[in-house]
């Protein structure tokens, strides 16, 4: 963990809660010889991450099932333990004890490696996320680059899974996964280039710090509240949906088309690992979105700062995860060619134009008074007009229809 940043206007209670995780860790480390501290500190961080996000994964599956249920007018799991709270553990026990089948024809090594690699890679992203003011597992200067490099590699694991299974459906899914990877990596990266441009850094901590402060005490300086930031955030989230293979971009495991896609030949705990990796990836990308656009661990209003920073991070993360689930409950799936077309012909140009908008915003930072209004109007127009034009071209030939009646 990085050295503690100076606490600005923090009260005593805030400081205690804020420091609690670090204090606990340091208290543990105090009993160890100096030479071991660095490694044990790392292990503690990893353990804490695994515990928190492991639990989050468990309850996210439950939350998804219950929310889907509620949206569909039913309660969802509610019988295993009080309020269904033990359901994830029952699933875990079952998955752990389930027979593990490796098809005879499959490439046994790759078949085994794919879920392991996938989970490992999706966990790597967490290393650079600033979970709180004092909670950054690894402070890297090029944290954002590292994060997306690790994230991009997950699709290779999906491809591994699809290829190694020697199943036609898995193979189709693997091809889809690769095409999706190549298509959506670009808008994903382009969407946050403006953030880096404006913050002038690749370090996640500094990006969060750059979003600190409030106008009038309640309007935070988050990137999402600027025209380019909003556009970037939306593009980022769409691309994140695709990167984490979530509906409406869950083409690699499209249930109604490809059985279970790349997962078709996986059983037992290996399957659970895939599931875990999907949720980890979703959490990591949401965390990155929080960091880049939603002000990271910053509180939305000045007077709410007494709540510890990691709680704010968690709340924002959960809000985005709820969005993932809500979208999954509503939208149908895109087709492969539509998916790539959406990326290349809509999101990429939009992200590029957004780069220009951000540049305009950056150059006009000094404008004030009535010029501030002009600045906003131009920036909003730079976002909305391309969206409308590109949107119209994207949906050309697709429109609600009117019908006639026979005699």
């Amino acid at each position, binding site marked *: 963990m990085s050295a503690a940043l100076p606490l600005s206007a923090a009260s005593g209670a805030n400081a205690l809660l804020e420091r609690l995780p670090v204090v606990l860790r340091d208290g543990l480390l105090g009993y160890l010889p100096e030479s071991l501290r660095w490694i044990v500190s790392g292990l503690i961080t990893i353990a804490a991450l695994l515990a928190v996000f492991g639990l989050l994964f468990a309850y996210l599956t439950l939350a998804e099932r219950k929310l889907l249920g509620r949206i569909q007018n039913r309660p969802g799991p509610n019988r295993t333990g009080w309020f269904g709270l033990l359901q994830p553990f029952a699933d875990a026990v079952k998955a752990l004890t389930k027979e593990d089948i490796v098809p005879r024809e499959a490439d046994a090594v790759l078949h085994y490696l794919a879920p392991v690699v996938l989970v490992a890679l999706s966990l790597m992203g967490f290393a650079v996320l600033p979970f709180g003011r004092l909670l950054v597992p690894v402070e890297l200067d090029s944290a954002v680059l590292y994060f997306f490099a690790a994230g991009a590699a997950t699709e290779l694991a999906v491809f591994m899974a699809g290829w190694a299974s020697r199943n036609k459906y898995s193979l189709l899914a693997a091809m889809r996964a690769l095409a999706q990877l190549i298509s959506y990596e670009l808008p994903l990266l382009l969407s946050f280039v403006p953030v880096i441009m404006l913050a002038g850094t690749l370090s996640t901590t500094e990006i969060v710090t750059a979003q600190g402060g409030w106008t009038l005490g309640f309007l935070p300086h988050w990137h999402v509240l600027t025209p380019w930031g909003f556009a970037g955030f939306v593009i980022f989230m769409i691309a994140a949906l695709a990167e984490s293979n979530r*509906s409406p971009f869950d083409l690699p495991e499209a249930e109604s088309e490809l059985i279970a896609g790349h997962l078709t030949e996986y059983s037992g705990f290996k399957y659970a690992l895939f599931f875990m990796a999907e949720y980890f990836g979703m959490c990591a990308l949401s965390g990155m979105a929080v960091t880049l656009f939603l002000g990271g661990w910053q509180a939305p209003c000045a007077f709410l700062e007494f709540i510890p920073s990691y709680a704010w991070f968690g709340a924002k993360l959960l809000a985005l995860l709820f969005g993932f689930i809500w979208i999954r409950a509503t939208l149908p799936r895109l087709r492969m060619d539509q998916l790539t077309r959406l990326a290349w012909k809509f999101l990429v140009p939009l992200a590029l134009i957004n780069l220009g908008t951000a540049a305009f915003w950056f150059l006009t930072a000094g404008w004030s008074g009535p010029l501030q209004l002009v600045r906003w109007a131009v920036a909003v127009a730079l976002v909305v007009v391309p969206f409308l034009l590109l949107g119209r*071209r994207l949906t050309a030939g697709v429109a609600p229809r009117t019908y006639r009646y026979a005699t």
Partner: protein
Amino acid sequence: MSLTPEIGGAHVRAVHDEFHGDLLEVSMGPHHPSTHGVFRMIVTLDGETIVKLKPVFGYLHRNHEKLGENTTYLASMPYTDRLDYLNSMSNNWAYALAVEKLAGLAVPERAEYVRVILAELTRLLNHTCLAGFLMQDCGCSGTPLMYAFREREKILDLFESLSGSRMMCNYQRFGGCRVDPPAEWLAGAQRLVDGYSAFLDEFEALLTGNEILMARTQGVGRLDPALAVSAGVAGPMLRATGVGHDLRKVDGYGVYPRFEFRVPVGAHGDTYDRYMIRILEMRESIRILQQALAGLPGGPVMDPKAKLRGFRPKAGEAYGRIEGPKGEIGFYLISDGGPNPYRYRVRPPSFINLTILEDMCLGHTVADAVIILGSVDIVLGEVDR
């Protein structure tokens, strides 16, 4: 740069000839989440584009016709429930109609009205479920299907309180209906019909204007009207191509000529049209139901001359058909004067509608094939019998 490019078969084949890729043969089904039962398609793929599709039938061939020839006329009635198991009431009616034609039985007026009410409720049920299943095929995570089944349960409650069974109603009899619907049942039906438009509005708000859905379905699986007619395609699928053919209007069986309703027809014959025609048909069914419930006459629901047991029509043959929710469902019966039909044949609409499945799917992708099949609206009990 639209989401639905023109993917014609010829174009695709030309491209394929240019870059000789290896073709991949995939067997979809008989266990596949979106073949709507135990249907199987052997699909030859170039990349993800379909260059050949051969349907394989028979995984639910449970010898309906043979059993029909070995049992009495009456005993076949519960078997017709299990033909198209979503729409037992319409199947019952089609079979009863064919037998009534064969034996020359008359049906009391009240029974005709009750039959119309039940057939239109069945149409609502079937089209609602189809819309839900189609959305499921498009990749929705169950939500539209849940809403569809929420309404289905309400209709099934009505069926259950009238006939005793949720799905297998076994309700129609030769020369009338088994049970006279009591007043409270009719009131319940009226409540359901009154509330159905609101459900349809909500369902349409959920999906009809959805850009993803429109992009997925518009221009996908086009069907040419001439081919549709030649291939015997019937029902909403035929009307989606622009042919305004509805047996309720053409044959005017039952008391349908007394009701005012319109027949929606599509212009493109694609999957979206097939979906929308069904939505619009449900709105027309609601109109028919309102009229039928308002105009239901009194009297018996059973022809007093009709016999339950020992039913032996004179030798001869008859083909009776009605406009079922899936298309023209017909029964062809030959009597040799005995208690069992000599020949008992079902004209299964969903089986015949599948004739042109390959024509519709060529040049599209696997994802499209799934929704094209979904929009054909098959029930395997009827396809394979």
